């Protein structure tokens, strides 16, 4: 599904991503783990086109997207959750979610002349998703007024609702209270059963290791180990990287 | 500033706005026979000093005219040289203050107001020498005459002095463009030519490079056709750059600040203007000139003389019992040689005047008529 080939990204002297290569197989949850500053989020930014790679290739189901713009990459089917919350604060929850559904809203003349009555099908989809996380009564509150955990949930929903073949999720449960953590874990599980392909960054080791099918470990911009969760759990190299030399 | 304080503030502002308009609208116009003049002058902004001088002329005339009993009232509006502002002022003066006569200064503002005045059949005196201004309608008058005559008079003088090459720097507006054209019309034939003619903006203060161009072209005479502050600065910078050719200039530079800026470089400048200081025989007008000198510490400027004469003329007409704009219009057109400081007033059929331009110069810090 996604292939990274000796990707490089330097910020001045800092080698954020240093000749990193790995592959994500379809219909699997792949976890990308490693200590802070290992280059995980930078890889996410390179794949989603927010940063331009210095060298190396990013292939997504056959297409070379190394130099593509974020909006083009997204329309190819990659949907991405950011590490910090990036909701539209002055819009309501419903408006935030509706934006993800399709790109009909970018057609100026169509919007100007049509009655843009919200289609039944979109309405129900939003309601269904909100019921899933028990936030149906927050439909018309401004996202600015939500709690941090609620914001993470809505943002996850927005990423899922955005039509995609591949999901990139950057620390979905970081800083979220245990109750909501369960809800998010349940959602990821549900997506896995539906056969979605997910690339996950998460620090919480046991959360990651029991959700992921495959684990890739990064340190100082390089991939230092790959394997099934059990193999990684007791791999000396990984422990060393985490606990520091 | 909690919520209540903010709402109170808003209520206060809105009340002021509504209250003042209501006061303005319902104010009973003063007694019937007083004639009202609405003066839309540039009282702030770049042209404030010219608005101020016109205002002085009006104030002086009002004191003389209203000595026994008040027959003329003047309402001032500040146009700031902005067209929208001037149009608002004109609408207010015509419709609320019910003025019979409008004064407007600066060519741009006068152009914007002319159609409004003409449409409402209100007399408009435009203190601008924009060529063809009074042709816009029979209610449009001007006491300044056409700017091109000044240019022509200076052209004739340059020919008398057998100058062959001339240079011109003129302010980028209708009046001074007219003067430049007038000068070229007369001067440029057989072997005489204007080697350089450049315009400058109102925001200009550094004329060095224009003057460097002129220095390279080596003209024998230089015409600075602009307002007093610009002409003075051009003069200073020209002398600093070593240009010592004879400098000609135009009406309006007869001000205290011109002498202050130019200091000794003003000596010997020759300019064309309509005002005739010395041979004003009429003792009353002599009195007014003295009054202006000791009240404002400078000789009466062209702007002041112009507005003064118009107010005096209107007062004479009103004293004969004429009260309405159409009637005043007829009386104005019939005026013949009304004695004025800025020259005797006789209106042609378009409502403009043709005044003979005389030459003046500066001799040991005084504005005096120029003799050969």
């Amino acid at each position, binding site marked *: 599904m996604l292939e990274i080939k000796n990707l490089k990204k330097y910020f001045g002297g800092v080698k954020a991503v240093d000749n990193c290569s790995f592959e994500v197989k379809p219909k699997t949850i792949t976890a990308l783990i490693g200590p802070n500053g290992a280059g995980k989020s930078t890889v996410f930014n390179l794949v*989603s086109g*927010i940063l331009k790679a210095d060298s190396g290739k990013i292939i997504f189901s056959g297409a070379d997207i190394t130099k593509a*713009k*974020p*909006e083009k990459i*997204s*329309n190819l089917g990659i949907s*991405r959750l*950011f590490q910090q919350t*990036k*909701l*539209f*604060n*002055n*819009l309501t929850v419903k408006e935030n979610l*509706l*934006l993800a559904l399709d*790109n*009909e*809203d*970018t*057609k*100026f003349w169509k*919007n*100007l002349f049509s009655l*843009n009555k919200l289609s039944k099908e979109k309405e129900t989809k939003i309601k269904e998703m909100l019921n899933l996380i028990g936030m149906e009564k927050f439909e018309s509150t401004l996202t600015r007024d939500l709690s941090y955990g609620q914001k993470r949930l809505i943002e996850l929903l*927005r990423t899922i609702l*955005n039509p995609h073949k591949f999901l990139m999720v950057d620390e979905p449960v970081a800083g979220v209270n245990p109750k909501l953590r369960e809800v998010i874990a349940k959602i990821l599980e549900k997506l896995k059963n539906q056969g979605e392909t997910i690339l996950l960054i998460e620090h919480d080791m046991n959360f990651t290791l029991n959700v992921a099918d495959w684990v890739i470990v990064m340190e100082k911009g390089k991939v230092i180990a790959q394997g099934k969760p059990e193999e990684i759990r007791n791999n000396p190299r990984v422990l060393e990287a985490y606990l520091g030399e | 500033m909690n919520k209540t304080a*903010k709402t109170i*503030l808003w209520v206060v*502002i*809105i009340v*002021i*706005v509504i209250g003042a*308009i209501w*006061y*303005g*609208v319902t104010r009973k116009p003063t007694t019937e026979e007083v004639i009202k003049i609405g003066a839309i002058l540039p009282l*702030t902004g770049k042209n*404030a000093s010219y*608005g101020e001088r016109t205002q002085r002329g009006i*104030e002086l005339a009002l004191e003389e005219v209203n000595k026994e009993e008040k027959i003329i009232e003047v309402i*001032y509006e*500040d146009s700031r040289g*902005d*067209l*929208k502002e001037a149009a*608002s002022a004109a*609408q*207010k003066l015509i*419709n*609320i203050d019910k003025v019979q006569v409008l004064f407007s200064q600066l*060519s*741009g503002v006068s*152009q*914007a107001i002319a159609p409004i005045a003409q449409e409402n059949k209100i007399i408009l005196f435009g203190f601008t020498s924009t060529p063809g201004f009074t042709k*816009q309608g029979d209610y449009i008058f001007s006491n300044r005459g056409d700017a091109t005559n000044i240019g022509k008079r200076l052209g004739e003088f340059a020919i008398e002095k057998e100058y062959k090459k001339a240079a011109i720097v003129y302010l*980028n*507006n209708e009046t001074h463009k007219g003067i430049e054209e007038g000068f070229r019309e007369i001067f440029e034939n057989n072997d005489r030519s204007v080697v350089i003619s450049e315009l400058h*903006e109102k925001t200009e203060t550094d004329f060095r490079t224009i003057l460097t161009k002129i220095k390279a072209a080596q003209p024998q005479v230089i015409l600075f056709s602009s307002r007093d502050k610009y002409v003075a600065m051009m003069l200073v910078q020209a002398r600093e750059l070593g240009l010592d050719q004879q400098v000609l200039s135009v009406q309006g530079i007869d001000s205290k600040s011109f002498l202050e800026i130019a200091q000794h470089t003003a000596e010997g400048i020759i300019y064309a203007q309509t005002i005739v200081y010395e041979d004003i025989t009429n003792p009353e007008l002599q009195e007014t000139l003295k009054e202006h000198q000791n009240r404002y510490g400078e000789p009466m400027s062209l702007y002041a003389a112009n507005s003064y004469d118009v107010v005096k003329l209107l007062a004479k007409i009103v004293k004969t019992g004429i009260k309405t704009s159409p009637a005043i219009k007829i009386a104005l057109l019939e005026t013949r040689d009304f004695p004025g400081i800025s020259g005797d007033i006789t209106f042609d059929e378009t409502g403009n005047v043709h005044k003979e331009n005389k030459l003046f110069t500066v001799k040991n810090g005084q504005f005096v008529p120029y003799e050969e």
Partner: protein
Amino acid sequence: MISAYFIHLLILIGIYLILAISLQLSVGFTGLLNLGHIAFYCVGAYASALLALNGFPFWIYFLAAGFLAMIFGFLLSIPTKKLKGDYLALATLGFSFVIYAVALNWTGLTRGPLGLPGIPRPTLFGFTFSDNVSFLILTFIIVLISYLIIKKITISPFGKVLEATRDDELATRVLGKNTFKMKSISLATSAFFAGLAGSLYASYITFIDPSSFTLLQLIPVLCIVIIGGLASLKGTIIATIILVLLPEPLRFIGFPSSIVGPARQIIYGLILLLILVYRPKGFYGKVELE
């Protein structure tokens, strides 16, 4: 007929309304700090005046004013691709200075500071809007149509994309929307209506010169957008009425004649600063720019 004075003020309010709600579209709804709005107003006014003076019928020079301004809108949207916040404000401010300088110096086309006098009043289906009452009706209709169009844009999903671009452009792009295209459409649309306002202004005052399009003219419109409240058309309407009427009562206060000019400016400046200090968020502003 005191009403003539009020009709004049209502026409000015109408023209400023179109200017303000169109600026609101780019500043309030799309977060584009557009300080070049007066340049579009100027382009519209000159295009309309020049075409009208050469005998073109009303609906040609009126729409031409809008479309020409729109083209300049697209032109100015090019820098919005990489410029953000302050830098965009500076670029658009620089753009308005350039347009002013061109209007002042291209004397062949615009007659420079001499301006364009004698601009004809509009004639539609044989009827000429020469008196102010009929001109007010024309202005009112145009204001209504402009308001409905802009209102429709802002409440439509397209409007929501604009607001999303304002709140977090990167997140909007990651949802697959070409935000640069959105910003250029928003800027071009707001320029179009500014051009229409320019055409109305030229046809109403019947004389225009560059001095009507300087930085000082931008300040009232910008204040209306800020004080009315970002992304709130209702607030913009109220703020327009107040700010256009604000200087009028000062005419009726009897200042001694020698200081009447500066006195009014001082009061206007003071009220402006007071409003800014005590109401920086505006009446109905719910939106906080970063």
